[in-house]
């Protein structure tokens, strides 16, 4: 966990509206765990005021620009341009200075080795699943079910394939893969293998459907949520979601930034989550 000024190594549009940014980050490879996120300060001035939270897509090393120097450690984020902050991010270039707070939050628990793992990603919700896949492919068979509205929302699937992950794509308009919702694919998969474990990130309605499917079959599920965040470290209490057992009289709020963003499904009060809790602008 640190707060550091650093520079951008690359920032490119990979599909209409979706960008991939590589940021120099000493210590990233050792420090980040799958499912963790960072707070990105768009400018060192106060516009926009608050930092933006992003899942960590992956970490790695690249050769140094300068001969003879050791490789440069980096982390990558994938983001969708939805508003002011992300639009400004898309204007940043190689060499620009940025400030990062992270890695933050609780990541995924890798589950039981040997058991099949099914990762369900909706749109930009795919981001935190890549590091998880990297970690899981060693001990288990891993499948990725990726859903989006159109083909433009289907990103970096080939990179999962390169890890040895079997991928299934569905789009709502049928422009790529099967036509329909990713949850239909999940149902088929679990009918065939009820012993799998599921990990999901995407818009709340998708997560709710995934939860319904998994609960019915008693399949273990971990979800990564989103919430509006100001601090990212558990101090402002702006990012809470309702935990299991929550009621008006005995409220149980969980901080998405600190107790999440990854939760075991049974930690959450699913029937009481607001549409505004855990939603993802990028995948609506």
């Amino acid at each position, binding site marked *: *966990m*640190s*707060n550091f000024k650093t520079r951008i190594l690359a920032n490119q549009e990979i599909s209409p509206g979706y960008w991939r940014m590589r940021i120099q980050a000493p210590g990233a490879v050792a420090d980040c765990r799958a499912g963790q996120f960072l707070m990105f*300060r768009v400018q060192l001035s*106060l*516009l*926009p*005021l*608050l*930092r933006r939270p992003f899942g960590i897509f992956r970490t790695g090393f690249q050769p140094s620009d300068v001969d003879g120097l050791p490789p440069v450690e980096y982390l990558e984020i994938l983001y969708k341009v939805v508003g002011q902050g992300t639009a400004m991010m898309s204007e940043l270039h190689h060499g620009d200075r940025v*400030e990062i*707070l992270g890695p933050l939050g609780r990541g995924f628990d890798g589950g039981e080795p040997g058991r099949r793992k099914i990762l369900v990603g909706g749109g930009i919700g795919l981001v935190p699943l890549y590091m998880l896949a990297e970690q899981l492919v060693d001990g288990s068979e891993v499948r990725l079910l990726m859903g989006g509205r159109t083909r433009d929302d289907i990103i970096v699937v080939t990179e999962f394939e390169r890890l040895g992950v079997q991928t299934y794509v569905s789009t709502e308009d049928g422009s790529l893969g099967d036509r329909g919702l990713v949850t239909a694919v999940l149902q088929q998969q679990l009918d065939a293998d009820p012993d799998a474990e599921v990990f999901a990130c995407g818009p709340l309605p998708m997560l709710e459907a995934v939860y319904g499917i998994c609960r019915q079959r008693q399949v273990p599920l971990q979800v990564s949520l989103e*919430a*509006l965040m*100001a*601090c*990212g*470290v*558990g*101090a*402002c*209490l*702006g990012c*809470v*979601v309702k935990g299991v057992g929550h009621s008006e009289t005995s*409220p149980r*709020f969980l901080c998405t930034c*600190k107790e999440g963003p990854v939760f075991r499904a049974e930690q959450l009060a699913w029937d009481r989550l*607001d549409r*505004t*809790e855990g939603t993802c602008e990028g995948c609506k």
Partner: protein
Amino acid sequence: MSQQSTAKVSLAVEIAGLRMKNPVMPASGTFGYGEEFAPYLDLNRLGAIVTKGLSLRPKAGNPTPRICETVSGMLNAIGLQNVGVDAFIEHKMPFLREINTPVIANFFGNTLEEYGEVARRLNEIPELAAVELNISCPNVKQGGIVFGTDPQAAHQAVDVVRKNLDKPLIVKLTPNVTDITVIARAVADAGADAVSCINTLTGMSIDVRRRKPKIANRTGGLSGPAIRPVAVRMVYQVVQAVAIPVIGVGGISSAEDALEFLIAGAQAVQVGTANFVDPDAMQQVIDGLERFCIEEGIADIRELIGSLEV
């Protein structure tokens, strides 16, 4: 800044008997219970630590969404979610006890009796250097701002707390009044040792596509750089109106911002929303104050306090 220059400039201030290494502390509710920010800055360098507002029983807070960003500011309606005074003593004090910086507990109540009761409990914690009484939260139905907008109610709340408290008592004022000096005088008369101003300004923001308020509580408290000129004005007015020390708070994110308050007459400052933007913000304010003093040839920061020329 180097150790060497620290020796030349004194940043130390004293408020109602509370000695601080420098005039910079967090604003309540923006710094958790201290431990959240410990990985990012040295808590021992701060003038004091002010904790999240405490109530007698744990408090759940408001529905979500609770926050939204505005131009140079944010709205929040957290609703004073907190662990309650007992859990604070059991779970949060052990960490705070180890820090070599005075700790100030911010608190509130729903009723006058509760104000008194929380004050009594806090009074029994020897390691607490002072308390800050919140009569100014705009986000709760009962208590909070009700006591902060009516001079008589404010006087009563301070009176009941004063009777149960030997520690220095800071009272936090709301800007959501026509004339803040009236309330400031009322709490000073009732025995407050200092006042901090200001809490957040009631505001509202609307999602134009959904035609709905952006936060569930409809209205929230505006904080951040957007409110600084209002805060500076109010601090200036209150400094003229009462004899007790004033702590300036509202939109501070740099040393220059803090200096505005000190020059207007504040004896110390609190940094709030800026902690979210940069967890190192307070350290930068402290370093910048020291640098400013060196540049201006000022040996003791207290020379700057109230040095406004009009």
